[in-house]
């Protein structure tokens, strides 16, 4: 009898709802990551295209979760479809085409779909073949998408995907920011903050100053390679990564603080785990860093910030890295601030629609995703949508109409109340 109870133990009961939650047992279904398609063939075909990947199945509102699928509607654009197209390809039932590639690129790789799937290997690892398919597309000459190719070429020359000059990268830096020339800590600004959301860079630098952290900004800071890597151009991205690691090692950097979710994931996860670059540099995302400071008492919020806000989980720190709590914990410590949750939050958060090369290659899909998220944020009655990823921030700002809601980065708020 005890055995049976144990078997059923994994199903959690939500009071009065009759809802259950299946805890998947990662450990018994571990598979190797970052392999090529052939490797995943059988695992993929566990998929029955049942459609669970489309919905926040275990949550109260059973909301849609996949921007790509909801926008294009055809099954091909959901995870189930992509799984089976992958299988179709590896089984010789389908051939590579431009259209097939475009399906795989019509995706922000936000991974919300994975979170819903109840088949353990797919739940945990589907992103592996989503990326492997992009890599394969590149190999076959079907990827990346033209716009992505364009920014990649630019990145290889000017170290940013924004068609800006490398020489203008530090234009945002005001004179009052105090850097420590031989600091072992670097503030890694990232392309978006350097060129587009400079407020974030300024705020972050000011916060670091006010906390009297010894830091510096690498004068030759370059793109981390994320936009290149995420579009399947692994070889190119690896080259960028190697150069970056060398540059920071040479500069004696031991710790990187970044305000960018994409840079964070790339440095912390992609460099070592995908590219095998065990750089040994500690990588901290700003909210995490702030939380540490709050905990050890070095940081205190003395001023009030009276605003109702909602927090948007950036995919690159949320589902990609599992960081959901720290930004919220920081926000909750701010006096006067009222944090409201959107229906879809944490691992079920709806993507802002900018990542994975989508914003440059599929503007309609990107705008569709952003608008849905903005509407959802508005429904909470929050005055501002707060994130901790400059790419999300920029996306929201670009898509919010008539100032119906504000968009802020976490750093911008913190800056005001220190």
């Amino acid at each position: 009898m005890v055995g049976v109870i144990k078997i059923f133990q994994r199903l959690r009961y939500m009071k009065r709802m009759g809802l259950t939650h299946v805890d998947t047992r990662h450990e018994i279904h571990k598979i190797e990551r970052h392999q090529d398609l052939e490797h995943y063939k059988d695992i993929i075909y566990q998929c029955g295209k049942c459609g669970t990947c489309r919905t926040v199945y275990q949550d109260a509102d059973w909301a849609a979760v996949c921007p790509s699928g909801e926008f294009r509607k055809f099954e091909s654009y959901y995870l189930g479809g992509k799984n089976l197209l992958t299988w179709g390809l590896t089984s010789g039932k389908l051939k590579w085409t431009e259209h097939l590639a475009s399906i795989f690129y019509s995706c922000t790789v936000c991974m919300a779909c994975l979170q819903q799937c109840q088949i353990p290997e797919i739940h945990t690892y589907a992103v592996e073949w989503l990326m492997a398919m992009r890599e394969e597309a590149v190999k076959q000459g079907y990827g990346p998408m033209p716009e992505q190719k364009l920014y990649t070429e630019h990145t290889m020359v000017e170290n940013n995907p924004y068609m800006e000059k490398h020489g203008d990268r530090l234009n945002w830096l005001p004179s009052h920011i105090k850097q420590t020339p031989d600091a072992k800590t670097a503030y890694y600004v990232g392309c978006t903050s350097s060129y587009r959301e400079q407020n974030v860079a300024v705020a972050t630098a000011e916060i670091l100053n006010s906390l009297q952290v010894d830091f510096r900004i690498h004068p030759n800071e370059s793109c981390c390679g994320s936009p290149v890597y995420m579009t399947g151009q692994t070889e190119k991205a690896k080259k960028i990564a190697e150069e970056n690691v060398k540059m920071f090692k040479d500069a004696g950097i031991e710790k990187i603080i970044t305000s960018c979710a994409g840079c964070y994931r790339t440095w912390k996860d992609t460099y070592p785990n995908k590219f095998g670059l065990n750089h040994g540099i500690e990588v901290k995302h700003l909210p995490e860093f702030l939380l540490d400071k709050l905990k050890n008492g070095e940081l205190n919020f003395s001023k009030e910030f009276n605003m109702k806000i909602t927090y948007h989980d950036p995919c690159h720190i949320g589902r990609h890295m599992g960081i959901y709590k720290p930004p919220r914990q920081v926000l909750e410590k701010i006096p006067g601030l009222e944090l409201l949750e959107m229906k879809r939050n944490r691992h079920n958060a709806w993507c802002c629609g900018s990542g994975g090369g989508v914003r440059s290659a599929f503007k309609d899909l990107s705008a569709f995703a952003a608008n849905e998220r903005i509407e959802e944020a508005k429904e909470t009655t929050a005055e501002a949508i707060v994130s901790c990823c400059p790419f999300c921030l920029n996306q929201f700002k670009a898509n919010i109409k008539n100032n119906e809601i504000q968009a802020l980065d976490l750093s911008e708020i913190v800056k005001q109340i220190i």
Partner: protein
Amino acid sequence: MIDSKIIVELENVVGKKYVSDQPEIQFLYHYDFVTAEPEGICDISIMPNSAEEVQEIVKLANKHKIPVVPWVSGINFGSIATPRKGGIVVDLRRLNRVLEVNEDDMYAVIEGGTTWADLQGYLEKNHPGLRAGITWSPPGTGIVPSCLCYGMFDLGMLGGSGAEFINGLEVVLGSGDLVKVGSCSLSNYWYGRQPLPDLAGLFIGWEGSTGIVTKAAIKLWPKMPFREDFAALGLTIDKGVPVMLKLSKAGLGICDLVIVNFGWGSSVQELNEKNIAKDAKEANMPDFVGLITTQAYTEKQHEAQCEAIKEICKEGNLRVLSAQEGAEVITPPPMQLWGCWNFSRGGGGQWVGTYCSTRDIVKFYNLAREICLKHEKIPQFYSRILFGGHYVVARTNINFNKNNPEEIKTTRALLKEIHEEVQQLGGVVMYKPPKWAVQTYKNRTLPATTELIEKIKKLLDPNNIMNPGQGIGDD
């Protein structure tokens, strides 16, 4: 072969974005990826956004005499949405709006492609006092097809099979005509199928071979303030079933009664079939798990009902665990059943799922179990008691590795063997049956009834374009 002119005509109906004949899009409509039943061909897929568009599509299909396959999720264990004879798959994904919820008459008017997720989400947000059923199928399955195909959900004790939840339909017939059946045919209320002639049956149980349902009203039920879910454990199915049947007739506020066996219970975990005992008996594990959900309006009523349920279980020598008392019990849906098709770590699953008399549950199980064990498969069984105990669904699942043609073949043989065995019990009939099962029923059905079915089919779909090769009225 499909004329490319048709694509243009179809694009004129729904816009370019929602028509496709690209292989990367069509591939996913070729067959049911859970069962790995033989594949068909989807030549064109199209996503209409209104009943009028559906009508236009069906008219075009009639004009060109090409098949039309209605589709929502396209997965089901009978592979009945597989386009056997090519043609146009009408994917109803965009027809997924919840148009109205009538709290007084407790129904939801939904479009033909509305999924359980769509409705569930809508209700949670806007009508938290009402419940739609929750199925064991994935959230993306369609409500309307599920009801039309006698699927069932966790309100089955109150209202019967899904078909019995249908209050009315709006349908585009195979002929292209759009009809409404039920009270909606002459009013804005969709309160029921009465009192005009009840034409809903022309679309219920037909597997999409008579028309495409564009709207339906589905009964909802009130959510009561008190609820409890029990698991009752017993050594054998023989022991447990009579207790469940007794409960079904005791009117204890029970809205759902389910029986699952050890194999099934194990499969919904992420366990691998190969790593666990083949048979509960052998492992000295309880084979019987009954799941009981009761609702009540007042606390005292709730207590009384819970007490009586426990008492009846205890009298029947079952061990009862309640959800409130401990978290260590299985609870009602949503429960994702990937285990059903991933238990043998191959992502393939198929069932013999049947309606039958309450008298035959135990016999059904024992017959199926023996065959499974003979073929060294873990018997995976569940049964749901419906409509106050008036009838039941019994189901045996078999898993296989979908990538292994050999295993697919042996599984299919095994399924047919089970199906054949359980036929010795009168009245055991598969729902959502695959074509091979349909054929056996056709042979057994009173010839005049079969003839009538064929005539109706012909009447509603004169050019035989609706989901050809599926359903019972087809040649």
